[in-house]
């Protein structure tokens, strides 16, 4: 059962991004910047660190596809960017896994990579004509700060979850 716990929790985060976050932090015309929640990506990067690149890419591409279908109209953008971000953030070293600061740093850079990639892809297909500086100030920076704080809150529960999964797997192995 613990096997399905990870996708289940990520699905909850997915719902939070689109439904709960939008209800409790509605976009406002007075705000000069956009707050884009990237909770799923935080979980995907953590999966990538603690479960290896393979699982990370699988979960990333899967939830990216769901994101594309449910929240946007263009399939492929998030599927590709999330999979790619999961792949490059697969630092599976022991020192990274046991520390608290390293995952935060990796998550923040992964969020920046994802924001940049989605911006670039939307720019190429003509979905936006935002300049890079505007993109950085209006989207990337606020998003990095907000999601960085969320990452601080999420890392510990996910570390616990991954330890539990590992323990059950070892038990089954014996």
């Amino acid at each position: 059962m613990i096997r399905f716990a990870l996708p289940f929790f990520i699905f909850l985060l997915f719902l939070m991004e689109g439904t709960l976050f939008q209800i409790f932090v509605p976009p406002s015309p007075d705000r000069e910047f956009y707050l884009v929640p990237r909770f799923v990506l935080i979980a995907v990067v953590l999966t990538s660190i603690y479960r290896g690149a393979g699982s990370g890419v699988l979960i990333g591409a899967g939830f990216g596809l769901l994101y594309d279908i449910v929240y946007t109209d263009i399939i492929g953008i998030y599927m590709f960017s999330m999979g790619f971000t999961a792949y490059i953030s697969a630092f599976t070293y022991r020192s990274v896994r046991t520390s608290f600061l390293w995952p935060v740093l990796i998550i923040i850079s992964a969020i920046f990579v994802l924001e940049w990639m989605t911006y670039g892809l939307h720019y190429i297909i003509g979905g936006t004509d935002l300049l890079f500086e505007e993109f950085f100030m209006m989207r990337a920076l606020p998003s990095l700060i907000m999601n960085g704080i969320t990452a601080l809150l999420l890392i510990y529960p996910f570390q616990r979850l991954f330890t539990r999964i590992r323990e059950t797997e070892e038990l089954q192995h014996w």
Partner: protein
Amino acid sequence: MPHFFSNKRLILLMVSIIVLVSLIGFSTRNNETITWPEKFLRDTTGVVQSLVSRPAHMTAGFFGNVADIFNVYEENQMLKSRMEEFASLSAELETVKQENATLREMIDSESSLNDYTTRTALVIHRSPDKWTDMIGINKGSQNGVSKNMAVVTSEGLIGKVKTTSEFTSSVQLLSDDSRTNRVSAMVATDGEPVYAFIEGWNEEEEGLMLRKIQSDAEIKEGQQVITSGLGGLFPRGLAIGTITSLEPDEFGLSYNALVEPAADYYNLEQVNVIERTSETLDDTIQQNTNEENEEDEEEPVEVEDPDAGGGGSS
């Protein structure tokens, strides 16, 4: 990324880029409907989203109410002053309605572009990345919602249905920045109505862009912009907003105006999907729809519109 640039990985990257390009090409094609796997995924997530969003809206609404209590007094004062205005307006509306009905009887026209039925839907999600401005609602093709129907709140038009699945549909808001986001609108002037298009959101000046206004049109700031009912499935006379500024376009052949939206696109909870009842000019079909309406007790709502039937002579 320990061994990122080994040959196998590079090939995998290339393949996935090709897949990406083909998927984007597949989904940006001029598509009328979405495929069944997409519908399935949207419906299943839609069910969960409906379950989650209802209590969330209630909680958010509760905190909103607590905040509202603090300015109840001022609001009450303002509403009282508006109340008298409202009484005289509704009396006027009643006489205009009656007059409209008699006039319509005289010309034997049973239905007009103003008639519509509404379906209430709950907002279940909003696209979290703000590249597109779309919301999801919990009514789909099974509930009779179809593509390009108008979506309104009590304040005015907010957008149109972009795609539908069986139990959910996604609504493209007027503030969405897409090039295909276009609504046929008209400006309610004293004389002939002026027709133009609402074409997306102006990021710098924070307003909707009303474009392709004829240069000889008599338009002032502060005039109402409403839907024209000429294109698609929109009824005539849904409020869009008021004109705040006006300027000639780059070639000087027509005017562009900035429209301050009547509806709030930001705190959406319940929306109404609107279906125009008078679709065709065929008499028999018209009568059938009217009879159905009476049986269904879904009264076609008349909207006050002094220029209705003014005809598009231009």
